[in-house]
């Protein structure tokens, strides 16, 4: 994974609450067996008419947001299905940062595994971001969002920060702890009520 740097961009405001992963990537695209190329299917049913023409009133089709790397959404984003395809689509489309008041649990951890930074902010901050038209800057290293020369700090789990900044391979990191895994397995083997 590529190390995560400073992200500077205008924000794409998608003003909906409880957006589920079925909307982020509809089911017909889950049959693919690779990870790449999902950006074209992002918000497919919201983005396109039945005949394939872009829907005029959908925010992703508004040209001013064309190169935006930051998506703004309302509470409980990414709920429902565990499909990681949702994050693959967001990432492939070009979104590196998603800001909301809350995220669904599985979606939240799926983001970090694919180099996408989900940021939780309070209602007031989210409102401020929704009303800004100018570029904002997200500095993960310093855990700061810059908006119109104002800095807004955000929280992030230390581990996830490290994973993103260093672009770590999760499995390789875990395998460094293999002695602990072996120890657990050994104890199970000797247990009268073994379950693994």
């Amino acid at each position, binding site marked *: 994974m590529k190390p995560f740097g400073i992200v500077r961009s205008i924000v794409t405001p998608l003003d909906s609450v409880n957006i589920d992963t*079925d909307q982020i990537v*509809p*089911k017909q695209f889950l*049959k693919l067996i690779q*990870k790449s190329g999902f950006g074209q299917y992002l918000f497919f*049913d919201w983005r396109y008419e039945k005949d394939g023409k872009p829907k005029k009133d959908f925010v992703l089709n508004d040209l001013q947001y064309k190169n935006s790397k930051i998506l703004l959404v309302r*509470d409980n984003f990414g*709920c429902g299905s565990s499909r990681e395809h949702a994050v693959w689509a967001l990432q492939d489309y070009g979104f590196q940062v998603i800001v909301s008041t809350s995220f669904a649990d599985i979606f939240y951890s799926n983001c970090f595994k694919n180099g996408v930074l989900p940021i939780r902010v309070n209602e007031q901050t989210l409102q401020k971001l929704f009303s800004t038209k100018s570029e904002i800057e997200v500095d993960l290293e310093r855990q700061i969002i810059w908006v119109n020369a104002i800095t807004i700090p955000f929280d992030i789990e230390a581990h996830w920060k490290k994973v993103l900044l260093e672009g770590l391979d999760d499995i390789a990191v875990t395998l460094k702890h293999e002695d602990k895994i072996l120890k657990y397995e050994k104890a199970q083997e000797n247990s009268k009520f073994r379950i693994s």
Partner: protein
Amino acid sequence: MAQTLFEKIWNSHVADEQSGRWLLYIDRHLIHEVTSPQAFDGLRSNKRKVRRTDLTFATVDHNVPTSDRSLPIVDQTSAMQIMALERNCKEFGIQLFDIHSPNQGIVHVIGPELGITLPGTTIVCGDSHTSTHGAFGSLAFGIGTSDVEHVLATQCIWMEKPKTFEIKIEGKRRNPHAVTAKDIILSIIKQIGTGGGVGTVIEYRGDTISELSMEQRMTICNMSIEAGARAGLIAPDEKTFQYLKGRKYVPKNYDEYVEYWCENLKTDSGAKFDKSFTIQTDKIVPQVSWGTNPAMTVDVTGRVPSPEEHAKGNPDEEKAAAKALQYMELKPGISITDISIDRVFIGSCTNSRLEDLIEASKVVKGKKVSSKVRAMVVPGSQLVKKQAEELGLDKIFKDSGFEWRESGCSMCLGMNPDILASGERCASTSNRNFEGRQGFGGRTHLVSPVMAAAAAINGHFVDVQDLDLN
């Protein structure tokens, strides 16, 4: 110190801890065709093996057609994904219940039915409804594909410790045949919201829970994710142990395990939960969802709410409700029982088990499906199908005009040919009424199996409390 059931299972599975994150050992890993191909690709490109093939089980469920299985699969992309799983299981040495196996079925139906699901275990699957297995007192949760790869390679998963959430379900239902586990869980989600359980593991407790059968408990735990929870748990009891006894993969000295589970798998008195919620079941009536998430639900005796009524002062919810009403083509104020339907789907990991089919069959026996309605039953597994056929349920359903299908996820998410046409309205026993979930432009109303069956006969929703269901 007094501990919750969750804490006991969690603590007994910690292999390592690093600055506030825990490495949990996983006892059972369930795999299906949709969320695994990229994980196997990852293993291959890094030259990694599956660490515990003996703890990994696979089946095909999301994509499989539910029509005649002797015919080839028409949808080429589905066929490719199914073939990819077969190839991957063979290459990595994983037990697969393939499309022709007598044990094939929805992964969350076959786990318990084969005794793969056991009390006190940790279970993961690349599917959010893995919470189902919590009905057996196992800590079970859905994961993304990167974590599927991680578990395949390491048999472990890194997690932050979730908070604990106690939901007490108390009281006697007015009529347990009419007010089902589905109505209880929909009532809970309606009240706590689709984000009400985020970051938590729910433990369902209370006298109503003890009274529920294992299949009903699975329905409750299954929909924990619709409240945003990581997992749902129910402490195992005599019903749990009876259900699992003699199943294919339970340990040999089963009775000794039961004794051990009895002693160890319950929340200590005095243990503290981070959060608590109580629901009284004597007030619950059959539920019908009207909107585009499972919290947008009302009593069958009620009316479609206006956005303001639904939102209770939350502007984001109000906007969402207005959009939902438009999508569902419903006007506020109309009675739920005046909503006509075009399709009925009885199936999914929420409601496709034998008991669901028995209850639904009582409603349709000797009656005909409304001429305006196309109705289907999709048993959750080949075993459920076989048992139902032994009871003659297939005949009851077919005689009344239902289609009787092969097992799979089917129209719960419409990845196979079973989908709604745009604009069609469906009474569905599944778990999600999201926009387009059952087919582009399709409109889903979540209900219990008896409610779905009654809607099929009448062509619109009816209050099953008025029917003789005994």
